Each structure stands twice: as structure tokens, then as C-alpha cells.
């Protein structure tokens, strides 16, 4: 896809045209599912469990049923269907046992929202409260109560996952490279530590909402605020055993997703309510509180890393154990486990590596995909750990990282050989280090310290991520020309805010060599109308759909040229085109316009040739494989996007309060298609990463009740939380198989913000932080209980002045 990417001649790529969706979004005209009211539509409400774990002894819906205006009531026993993306473990409504606080036990559809609310209040549920399993490490203990005692009987995707029946382990992913024990034997130093982070909520500004209408003949129409229309349709049909052409999924504008709207969520429930209500459309929109606990979150993680290193700074062995807290259902957590299992070492070459990554069931709201797909969480530990290893051996952390970074010829954990075309992580790292003046304080910074009494520190962290997707991930695009020569591209990938609609229009205009105003990409998605695209996830859309789009444009031009050749009585090889017409190269006055060709070329006598110009493009990820379950070896990565952050922080050494003076971020994007869109992703993702780093996270009481399901108690960043200075830097090492050399950067800006901050705070104060979010009180605590670096050393070179801790 790179052959046409000559920067000199690019007319649409690498610029910042205004987004194609803003006119509607800035006038209030943009339609979201939240805004939709269909004729005869009913409103749904859900009865939710106030307990984290309980047996349902009895549900009495009789009083709710008698309420005028109630059209349908469902409980778990009315629904004999189970859902699951990879492990089929979830009932649409809880049956017999409650597995998390906020889980749905019954649902009502009524004429108005007020009636639905009242009806839910009238439903009586008799629970037998059980002791919940809340800590995922406790859930691993032998004899721990089982969240899913029937795990052995569940269907699951065998090619990729390994549930462990009789335990709370929903999946175990292993990765083995070299001989880790031999590596540790060679190592002069061994450093080991554990890092943790809690569950976090995505916070799309539009909460989850779906409308469904179950019509006669089991034909179902669904309008949903979801990321992936085809995944909703396909999983829906799998659950209800319906042919795919019975179900139509429509997605208009989506008010943010961040992974939380990948997969399938409310659609089956509203569809069942519609069926029960005789086919009237039913709408359910989660409240903000329900968004926190009825709908999924990001999984918590405990990450143990043991690193063997030589005195010159070369890492020779690393053992990595990840314990992902799935919550009550496996959903995406098992795939987060798989994807992070093979990425766990970051952009570093580790000759001898061992990864065991577990997905653990607990009685908490369940985890799903969240921007970064596990990388935000594990990079917290990994990049804090790299800092610790460098400190231990007395090497500068930046130099230590440089020494171990992946270089062309390096081999990843799964056996992939990195080439110079994969991108340049070192350039990213050096750029951010340079941007923050890494390694020393400037005279101005020193003066500021002297003036304020505050401590200034600087830290860096790297990041990488490949799309987590099946090796056969496919997409397709249809490009249609209208009779005036304008073009509409039907793309199955959803623009949930990332700007893909505009980037695709630029790519199509570039490939067609048309002005941008002649190309429009559909915003609303419709599985009946749009061609297949697997999912809107993983930062793979630009590359895969972009490639399919380029092929579709080439196909449309091919067809136009064939008809033009006939019409002009010329060979195709003698033709060229501009934005309006196809002409003979050596006789440019002989031409035919695209408008004349668009719906078939008509001769003066009325006879016609050709037909409507439609281009089709298909693209499948190429050369990827499943991973071997025992060794984790294989080729999982469509591409790698590398990056790095550098942070300058100012810390109050008395209170632990801190403020970010500057953050510099760099990513190797291959080729920036829309500069301002790239910048929007970089800053937006970075600030979302700051939320994770500074303050966000679920807090439970001892019984598993979620204590902070609101913006009052679960803060997210506002514009007042911005760092004083923000630098966004792009590196452009072309991706050979990316459209115009581009690769995705949607998720990456969120990754590694937290460890860069943790490293900067460590540099300012010596505080050793191992848990995020990093609240001021955590910094204060860490400053006031500074264990020596030796605490984490389990092997030292002979003659080292560092001694092993006594208790080891």
C-alpha cells in the first residue's frame, strides 16, 4: 500500500482538513441513539442486585405486572440464552446466583420511563446473601469458592483460550522464549517486585443505550450506541440462533466508546423485552450509576516481574506473572490476558522470557476492553520496574532502556523478528527525553525549586502495542459513484469520535485523485447496507479499513477506465484522469467525464455501456497466526505502534501534592493522515491516561458494594487538570503495508502516562510507588516509608556493595 506514498505528491494526506462530522455535532443536529424515539416505543428499566454474591431464592413480579402501562417483565428464568465473547458464561439476566453488585436480575418495559421505574420498585427479590470473593489473588487460593462452578460445561474459543475448570481461572495464557532459569543463572543481578492497579470506568459521555424491535418472523432491528455493528449482529444471532440476514444493526453517532462499547451489551435484553411486549420497540439507556456497575469496566491487575540483568545493563531473563481481575464474567478480560501475555515485556528484547497471564473470576463488576487493551495497566508495572532495575545496578534509567530496546533483528516474546520498518521506539524515547531536558534540572528549574521549596523531577517511559485481534481479521469497503461524479464510501468501521470518517475521506480522495469535497464517507452504520468490518477496536481500523478503501478506489477507477477506453476508443494504458474526467494522455482534449461514466456511459443514440461505477475493496490481515498455547509462539501482530512519554513533575515534599509542569509524548505513527486528528488522539489519550494515573479507580467496601459510582466520587480530569505544557511529537517510519505508510495511534497515547509520572515523582522525591492511581496521599506515604532499593534485590554480583535484604 506504500507504492503511491510519495510525500511530495500527496495532496490530501498529512494535512488537517476540518472533520466531516462537525457541522452536525456543532449545531445539535447529530443524531445519537440517546436522542431516538420510535413510534410506539417502550422504555425499559432494570432491577439490580444490591449484593455482590447471593442466591436468588424467589422473585415476585406480580405487583409490577398489575401496574398500568407495564408491557413486559422478564426474569432470568424466562431467558434460556447465555452470552459470551470468548467464554460463554453470562446470562442475560442473572439466574439462581448473583455474581456482582449491580447485576441485572429482572427487567421491565413500560409506556413511560416513570412507569418502568415504578414497576422495578415493585419487583421483590428474596436473596440469600453469600460471602463474595473480592480479591483476585484470594480467588486463586486452593479451595476458594468458585464464581463459576460450571466452568467445565461452558463453550469457549478453543484456538485462543484455556479456562481451568474447578478454579476461578477463566484463562491462562503462557509465553515461553529461551530458557529463563538459565538466564537467571547467568544474571549478575535479579530484581523482583509486584505492581497493582484497580478497575477503572471508561466514562463515555453517552452512556450505553440500545433500542430493539423484535418483529414477526424473528426479524430484529437494533439501534445501538456500540462500536462494532457486525459483532453485535453476529453475536446476537449466535445467541438466539437466528440467520444473520434476519437481524439489522444500525449505529448512528456514538458518544464515545473507549472499548466499553466493543462486543455486545444491552442489545439482547432490549430485544427480549420487545419480543415479550409483542414487537413494540424497546429502549434502555443506562444511568451514569449503571454505567459503573451494570456495564463493564477495566480489569484490575497484579503484575509480578522478576528481571535478571548483567552488570553492563543487559537484561538476560525476565519472568512475568499477570493476574487479571476479570470480575464476574470473562468478556474481554480473557483476551486482554492473551494480548498482554504476548506484549508483556514492552519494547525490550528479552532473550529468556517466561509469561504466565491469568484471568481470574471474582464477585465484582466485570472487566472488558478499555483503550490500550491491558497495556495501560501492565506498562504501569513494567516501566516502573525498568526504572527500579536501572537504579539497582546504578545505571541511568534512560540509558538502561536504550540498551535493551528492540532494534532491527531483535526477536519478540512470540518469535517475531523486528525490522527497521516496524517503527523507531528509540527515536520516540530520545525525542521525549530531549523535550523535557532529561537528566538534569535547568538553571530556571533549580531556581524554581529554591524559590518554592518544591522538588522537581523528570521521568520517561516507553510504550508499544499491536492490535489485539484474530489472525483472520477482515474488512471490506464499497465505493459508489453518483451520477454527478461525487463518491460515497460505505465503510463498516464506526467513527466513535476518533476521526476515521475524515481520515478515510482523505485516503479515498488521495487514491482517486479527487478533491476532498467530492468524497463522503457514511457516518451511520447499517449491517444491511454496509460491507463487513470485524470490529471498531484495537487501533487497527486506519490500517485495515484504509487498505480496503484504497483497493475499492482502485477497483472503481479500473471500471471507469474500462468504460472510458471503450467510449473514447482508446487503450486503458493510454488513459489518465483528473478530478473530473478521464482523458487520452497524448490527446488530452479527448475525454469523458466521471459524471458521464458514473451510471454507465450513454452514446448519443441512447445506447449504453458499462453500468454504475462501484468499487469493492477487501483486506485481511496477512501472515498472522494463532499462538501456540504451550509456548505462546506465533505471529499475532498486524503492526506495532511505539511511543514514549516524558514528564516533569513538581512535588511538595511535605504533603505529597504534585503538579505536572510538562509532558512530552512521541509516537511512531508511520504517516499522519490528518495532523490535527492525530494531535487530538495524542492529547485526548494522554489526558485519559492522566485520569488513570492521578485519581480514577473503583473502590469497594468489604461486602463488594461499589462505593464510588458517580463523578462526585470517581473524578475524571477536567480542563483544570492539564499539565502546564504539552508537547506532541510524531515519528514517521512508514509501515510498509499501511495506507500511505500509516499505522494506528488511537489507544497508544493513554499507555505509560502513569509510569512516566511515577518515575518523575521517584526522581523528585525517592518515593517508590507501586500502585496507581497516584494520589497525593500515596506520594506522602511512599515518601515517608522509603524502603531501600535493596528490598527488591534477590541476587547481587560477587563483591557488590549492595547487600541482599535480611528477610530473603
Amino acid at each position, binding site marked *: 500500500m506504500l507504492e503511491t506514498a510519495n510525500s511530495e505528491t500527496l495532496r490530501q494526506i498529512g494535512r488537517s482538513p*476540518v*472533520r466531516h*462530522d*462537525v*457541522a*452536525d*455535532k*456543532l*449545531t*445539535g*443536529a447529530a*443524531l*445519537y441513539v*440517546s*436522542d431516538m424515539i420510535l413510534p410506539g416505543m417502550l422504555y425499559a428499566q432494570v432491577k439490580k442486585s444490591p449484593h455482590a454474591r447471593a442466591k436468588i431464592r424467589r422473585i415476585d413480579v406480580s405487583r409490577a405486572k398489575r401496574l398500568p402501562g407495564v408491557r413486559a417483565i422478564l426474569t432470568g428464568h424466562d431467558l434460556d440464552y447465555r452470552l459470551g465473547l470468548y467464554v460463554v458464561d453470562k446470562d442475560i439476566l442473572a439466574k439462581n446466583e448473583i455474581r456482582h453488585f449491580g447485576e441485572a436480575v429482572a427487567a421491565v418495559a413500560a409506556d413511560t420511563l416513570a412507569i418502568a421505574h415504578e414497576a422495578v420498585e415493585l419487583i421483590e427479590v428474596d436473596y440469600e446473601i453469600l460471602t463474595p470473593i473480592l480479591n483476585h489473588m484470594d480467588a486463586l487460593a486452593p479451595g476458594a469458592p468458585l464464581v463459576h462452578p460450571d466452568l467445565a460445561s461452558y463453550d469457549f474459543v478453543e484456538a485462543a483460550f484455556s479456562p481451568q475448570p474447578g478454579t476461578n481461572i477463566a484463562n491462562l495464557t503462557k509465553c515461553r522464549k529461551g530458557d529463563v532459569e538459565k538466564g537467571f543463572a547467568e544474571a549478575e543481578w535479579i530484581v523482583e517486585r509486584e505492581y497493582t492497579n484497580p478497575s477503572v470506568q*471508561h*466514562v*463515555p*459521555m*453517552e*452512556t450505553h443505550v440500545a433500542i430493539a424491535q423484535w418483529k414477526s418472523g424473528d426479524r430484529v432491528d437494533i439501534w445501538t450506541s456500540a462500536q462494532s455493528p457486525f459483532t453485535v449482529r453476529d453475536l446476537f444471532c449466535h445467541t438466539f440462533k437466528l440467520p444473520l440476514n434476519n437481524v439489522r444493526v444500525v449505529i448512528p*453517532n456514538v*458518544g*464515545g*466508546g*473507549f472499548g466499553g462499547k466493543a462486543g455486545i451489551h444491552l442489545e439482547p435484553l432490549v430485544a427480549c423485552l420487545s419480543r415479550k411486549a409483542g414487537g413494540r420497540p424497546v429502549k434502555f439507556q443506562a444511568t*451514569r450509576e449503571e454505567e459503573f456497575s451494570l456495564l463493564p469496566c477495566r480489569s484490575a491487575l497484579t503484575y509480578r516481574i522478576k528481571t535478571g540483568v548483567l552488570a553492563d545493563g543487559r537484561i538476560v531473563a525476565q519472568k512475568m506473572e499477570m493476574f487479571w481481575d476479570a470480575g464476574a464474567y470473562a468478556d474481554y478480560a480473557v483476551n486482554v490476558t492473551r494480548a498482554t501475555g504476548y506484549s508483556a515485556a514492552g519494547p525490550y528484547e528479552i532473550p529468556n522470557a517466561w509469561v504466565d497471564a491469568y484471568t481470574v473470576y471474582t464477585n465484582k463488576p466485570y472487566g472488558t476492553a478499555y483503550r490500550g487493551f491491558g497495556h495501560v495497566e501492565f506498562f504501569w508495572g513494567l516501566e516502573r520496574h525498568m526504572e527500579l532495575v536501572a537504579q539497582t545496578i546504578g545505571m541511568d534509567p534512560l540509558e538502561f532502556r536504550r540498551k535493551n530496546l528492540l532494534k532491527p533483528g531483535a526477536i519478540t516474546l512470540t518469535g517475531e523478528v523486528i525490522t527497521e520498518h516496524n517503527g523507531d521506539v528509540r*527515536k*520516540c524515547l530520545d*525525542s521525549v527525553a530531549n523535550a523535557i531536558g532529561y537528566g538534569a534540572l535547568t538553571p530556571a528549574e533549580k531556581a524554581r525549586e529554591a524559590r518554592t521549596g518544591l522538588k522537581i523531577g523528570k521521568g520517561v517511559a516507553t510504550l508499544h502495542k499491536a492490535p489485539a485481534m484474530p489472525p483472520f481479521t477482515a474488512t471490506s469497503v464499497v465505493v459508489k459513484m453518483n451520477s454527478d461524479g461525487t463518491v460515497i464510501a460505505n465503510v463498516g468501521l464506526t467513527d*466513535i*469520535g476518533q*476521526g476515521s470518517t475524515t481520515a478515510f475521506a482523505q485516503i479515498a480522495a488521495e487514491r482517486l485523485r479527487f478533491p476532498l469535497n467530492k468524497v463522503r464517507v457514511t457516518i451511520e452504520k447499517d449491517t444491511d447496507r454496509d460491507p463487513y468490518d470485524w470490529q471498531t477496536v484495537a487501533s487497527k481500523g486506519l490500517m485495515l479499513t484504509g487498505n480496503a478503501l484504497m483497493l475499492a478506489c482502485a477497483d472503481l477507477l479500473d471500471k471507469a477506465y474500462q468504460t472510458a477506453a471503450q467510449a473514447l476508443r482508446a487503450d486503458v494504458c493510454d488513459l489518465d484522469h483528473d478530478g473530473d474526467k478521464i482523458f487520452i494522455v497524448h490527446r488530452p482534449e479527448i475525454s469523458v467525464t466521471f459524471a458521464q461514466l458514473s451510471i454507465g456511459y450513454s452514446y448519443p443514440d441512447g445506447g449504453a455501456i458499462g453500468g454504475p461505477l462501484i468499487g469493492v475493496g477487501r483486506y485481511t490481515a496477512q501472515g498472522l497466526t494463532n499462538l501456540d498455547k504451550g509456548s505462546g509462539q506465533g505471529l499475532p501482530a498486524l503492526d506495532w505502534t511505539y511511543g514514549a512519554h516524558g514528564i516533569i513533575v513538581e512535588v511538595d515534599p511535605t504533603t505529597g501534592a504534585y503538579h505536572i509542569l510538562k509532558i512530552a509524548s*512521541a509516537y511512531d505513527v508511520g504517516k*499522519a493522515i490528518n*495532523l*490535527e486528528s*492525530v*494531535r*487530538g488522539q495524542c*492529547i*485526548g489519550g*494522554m*489526558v*485519559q491516561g492522566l485520569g488513570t494515573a492521578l485519581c480514577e479507580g473503583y473502590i469497594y467496601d468489604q461486602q463488594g458494594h461499589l462505593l464510588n459510582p*458517580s*463523578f462526585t466520587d470517581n473524578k*475524571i480530569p*477536567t*480542563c*483544570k487538570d*492539564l499539565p502546564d*505544557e*504539552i*508537547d*506532541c*511529537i*510524531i*515519528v*514517521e517510519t512508514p509501515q510498509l503495508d499501511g495506507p500511505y505508510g500509516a499505522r494506528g495511534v488511537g489507544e497508544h497515547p493513554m499507555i505509560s502516562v502513569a509510569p512516566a509520572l511515577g518515575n518523575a515523582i521517584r526522581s523528585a522525591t525517592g518515593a517508590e510507588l507501586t500502585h496507581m492511581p497516584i494520589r497525593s496521599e500515596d506520594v506522602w506515604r511512599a515518601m515517608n516509608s522509603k524502603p531501600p532499593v535493596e528490598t527488591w534485590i534477590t541476587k547481587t554480583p560477587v563483591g557488590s556493595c549492595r547487600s541482599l535484604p535480611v528477610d530473603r
Partner: protein
Amino acid sequence: MKIGVVINGALCEREAPENITLLHFLREYAGLIGTKEGCGGGECGACTVLLDGRAVNSCLVLAAEVDGKSVRTIEGEMRDGEPSELQQAFAKRHAVQCGFCTPGVVMSARALIERNPKPSVEEIKEGLEGNFCRCTGYVQIIEAVLEATGQPASMQELSHA
């Protein structure tokens, strides 16, 4: 009860429940869906409208309270069929991603620049701190407000390494 609100200059009279919020009155009785509900509890700012020129969370105002008063929403932001200077600046500066917070952000910015025609970056942050945006990271929004008020807008361009 009968509630009459002057919305974007035109009187809108409807029979509506006395406990209905201004947000739901706008969306369900006046047919103006541009004003969004993000939390329903006055925490996120997505429902911001101007009430007698002041930015308010319309989810915290009862429609009955504003009977006879004047409300401005995102639907009233165009000027003679053309985008306002704020709308143009938001478009130009890529200050919109998913767009769900956008109407509320624009109305807060409108209230700000009507009382302070040349706000500083700090004043813009003060003026918009009640509006959550989960997509943009706010920087391009701040730049858009600077641009709309004729001030140098680029806080920091994207740079190539």
C-alpha cells in the same frame, strides 16, 4: 401544567409535568435534542444551556422554574444560517471528537465570552471546568475559544521528530 419558555427567541408553550427538568422539557417537549444528558446529576456539564445569559446545567433546573424566562441552546448558536465564530473555531481547531459533550461545551464557552470577550487560558479553564470531555483532552477546545476571540490560538503544534 402549562409551561412556556422562550427558547432561542421563540416562545415554546407545552403541557408538561410539573416535575420535569428543563433538560427533558427541551429534549422531549420542545424537540431540541442538541442538549445532551451525560449524568443527570449536575456533574458533567453535557446539558449546559444559557438561562437569561448564564450557563446552567439544565438537568438541575425545573422547567416550571423558568416559565416565562429565556433559554438559549446549541440550536440557537448559528448566526443568520451561518456558523457562529465559536462554531467555526471549534471546527477549525478540531475541538470536537465524539461530539456528545460539544453542545454543552459550546454553550459554556458562549456564556464565558459574552461576559469576557478576551479570556486568558486560565479564564477559559475556569469557564469550562464544569464540562467533562473524555475525548479531546481539552487542549483543542481551549484553542478554539482563543481563536474565536481573536487571540493567538496555538498552544503547541504537533511537531515531527
